[in-house]
C-alpha cells in the first residue's frame, strides 16, 4: 500500500517536473512577450524528435543533445520573435489586438512546424531506449531515465529561477514583464528582452522535449496535448507568474498521476476539470495578480 502511494507520488513528481518545465517556457512567452504561443508544444515535439534522430543516427547521448537542442531552439525562437512577433507588435492597434493576432499567428506556426516534422520524420511513432535501467528507491523500482528527467527538470527550473532573481538580465526581464513601458524608459532594451524571453521559452520547450523522449515514445503530433497542458498549468499558477507555473506544474503532475492510477485515459479530462474549477472560482490562478 505504502509502495503504491510512493509509486504514484514519485510518478507524479516526474510528470510534474516535465509539466513545470514546459509551463515555465510558455509563461515566459506569455508573461513577458505577451504572446500566447499555441505552437509551444511543437517546439517540444521538435526537441524530442531531434534527440531521437541524433541518438539513433549518430549515437549521440541524449543528455548531450540537451546542449544542442536548447541553444538551437533558443535561436529559432529568438529569430521567430524578431521577424514575426515584433512586426505584429508594431502593427497592432492595441494590446488586445496584439494578443489575438499573435495567438492566431502562432496557430499558423503550429501547422507549419507540424507539417515540417511530418515531412522530416513521417507520422510513425519513434522511441529509443537509453538508461532504462531500474533504480531501487525506497522499495519501488523506477527507470534511471525517469529519475534523470526529474532531476534535470528541477535543475533547469531552479537555474532559471535563480537567473531571473539574481542576474541583471533576469531583473530586466522581470521589469519588462511587470511594466514594459516604464522598463523601456529606464533603459531596458525592450525589444531585445522580449525576443530573448521568447527564445528562452522555446529553449525550455525543446529541452523538455528531449527529456520526454527519454521516457516516452514520441511522434510528430504530440505537440497539441502538451501545449494544452502547459496552458492549463500557466492558468493554474497564475497568468504571468513564472514561479506559479513551476509550482502549478508539480500540482498538475501529481493530479495526473493519481487520476491515471485509477482511470488511465482521463488525465486530460481531469486537467480540464481543474481548469473549469479555476475559471469558476479564481481565474487569476494561485499566484496571479
Amino acid at each position, binding site marked *: 500500500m505504502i509502495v503504491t502511494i510512493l509509486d504514484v507520488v514519485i510518478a507524479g513528481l516526474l510528470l510534474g517536473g516535465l509539466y513545470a518545465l514546459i509551463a515555465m517556457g510558455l509563461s515566459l512567452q506569455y508573461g513577458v512577450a505577451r504572446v*500566447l504561443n*499555441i505552437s509551444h508544444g511543437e517546439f517540444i515535439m521538435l526537441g524530442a524528435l531531434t534527440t531521437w534522430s541524433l541518438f539513433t543516427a549518430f549515437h549521440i547521448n541524449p543528455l548531450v543533445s540537451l546542449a544542442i537542442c536548447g541553444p538551437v531552439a533558443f535561436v529559432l525562437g529568438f529569430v521567430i520573435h524578431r521577424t*514575426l512577433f515584433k*512586426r*505584429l507588435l508594431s*502593427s497592432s492597434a492595441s494590446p*488586445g489586438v496584439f*494578443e*489575438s*493576432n499573435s*495567438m*492566431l*499567428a502562432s*496557430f*499558423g*506556426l*503550429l*501547422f*507549419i512546424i*507540424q*507539417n*515540417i516534422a*511530418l*515531412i522530416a520524420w513521417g507520422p510513425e511513432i519513434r522511441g529509443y531506449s537509453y538508461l532504462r535501467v531500474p533504480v531501487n528507491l525506497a522499495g519501488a523500482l523506477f527507470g534511471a531515465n525517469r529519475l534523470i528527467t526529474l532531476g534535470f527538470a528541477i535543475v533547469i527550473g531552479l537555474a532559471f529561477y535563480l537567473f531571473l532573481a539574481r542576474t541583471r538580465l533576469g531583473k530586466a526581464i522581470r521589469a519588462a514583464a511587470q511594466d514594459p513601458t516604464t522598463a523601456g524608459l529606464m533603459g531596458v532594451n525592450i525589444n531585445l528582452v522580449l525576443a530573448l524571453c521568447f527564445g528562452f521559452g522555446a529553449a525550455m520547450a525543446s529541452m523538455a522535449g528531449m527529456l520526454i523522449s527519454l521516457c516516452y515514445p514520441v511522434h510528430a503530433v504530440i505537440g*497539441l*496535448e502538451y501545449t*494544452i497542458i502547459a*496552458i*492549463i498549468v500557466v*492558468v493554474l499558477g497564475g*497568468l504571468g507568474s513564472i514561479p506559479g507555473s513551476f509550482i502549478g506544474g508539480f500540482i498538475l503532475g501529481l493530479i495526473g498521476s493519481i487520476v491515471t492510477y485509477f*482511470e488511465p*485515459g*482521463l488525465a*486530460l*479530462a481531469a486537467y*480540464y476539470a481543474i*481548469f*473549469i474549477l479555476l*475559471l*469558476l472560482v479564481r*481565474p487569476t490562478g494561485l499566484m496571479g495578480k
Partner: protein
Amino acid sequence: MSIARVDWKKVWAPGSLLIIILVLLATLSLYASTYTVILLTSILMYVVLTVSWVIFSAPTGYVSLAPAAFFGVGIYTSAILGKALPLPAVILAGGLASFCLALLVGALTLRLRGIYFAIFTFGLVELIKHLLLWYEIKFTGTRGRFVIVVDNDTIYHVMFAILVILLLTAYLIRRSKFGLALRSIGEYEDAAAHTGVNVDALKTVTFAISAVFIGAAGAIMATRWTYIDPYIAFNPLFSFMPVLMAIFGGMGQFSGPILGAAIFGYLEEVLLTKFPYYYMLIFGIILIVTILYLPEGLVGLVQKLWRRISGGKRAHAGG
C-alpha cells in the same frame, strides 16, 4: 427589426446576382458531374464553418478556436443517432448538441477576459477526443463507429440548405439591434454594458447560435465518411481552416468569408491531390502572411484599391 432601411436601388443588382448564384447552386445536381457535386459540398461546408465563425468572432473580437469541437460533436451525433432517426432529425440533433455545448462553454468563459475563452476553446477539441476515446475503450470496446450511408446529392442539398439558413440568420443578426450590440461589445464592452446591453447573455447566445450550423454541417458530412472515430471527428484542422479563410477573405462584410472559404476549399482539394504532404505548411504560411500584411483580408484590399481608383472619400459602408 432593422436598423437601416434597405436601399433597393443599390441592392437590386448584387441581389439578383445572388439569387442567380443560389438557383444555380440549388440545381447543381441536375447538370454537374459527381465530382463537382462532391467538391462543392466540401466548399459549401467550409463556407458554413467560416461564416458561422465570423458571426460571433468578427464583431466581438473574441477568437473562438472551437469550430473543430462543434464539428466533431455533429459528426458523432450523426454516428450515434443515424440509424435510429430520420436524416432531418439527425441533422437537427447535431445542431442542438453543439448548441448546448456552446452554451456551456460560453456560460463558463465568456464572463471572463477573452484570452480565457480562446484558451478554453483551443483545448476543447482535444478534451472531447480524449473523453470519447476513454469512453469507447472502457464501455463499448470498439473504437469508432459506422455512419449511415447517404447519397452524394442528398448530402449536397442538405449542406446547401444549411448554408442558406445560415446566411439568412447571419444577415438578420447583423441588421438587427443585436448586430449593433455585438459590434459595440467588440469596441468597448464595458461601455456597451453600461448602455444596457446584457453582454454576457448576448455573447453566449450568439456563440451558441453560431455553433448550431457547425454541428449540423458535421452531422451531414459524417455520412460521407461512413466510418469515423475520435481522431477523424475531432481534428484541429477544422478550427484552423475557418480562421484562415475568414482572415484571408476579410471579416468586414459577408463576401470576405465566403470568398476565403471558396478559395481555400478549392485550394485544399487541389493541393491534397498534388502535394498532400505540404498543404498545411502552405496554409500556415498564408495565414501568417495575411495577418502581417493583409489585416483587412482580400476583400478589404479590394475595397481599398477601389477607393483609391475611384478617388475621394467614400462613405463608410455599413454592410
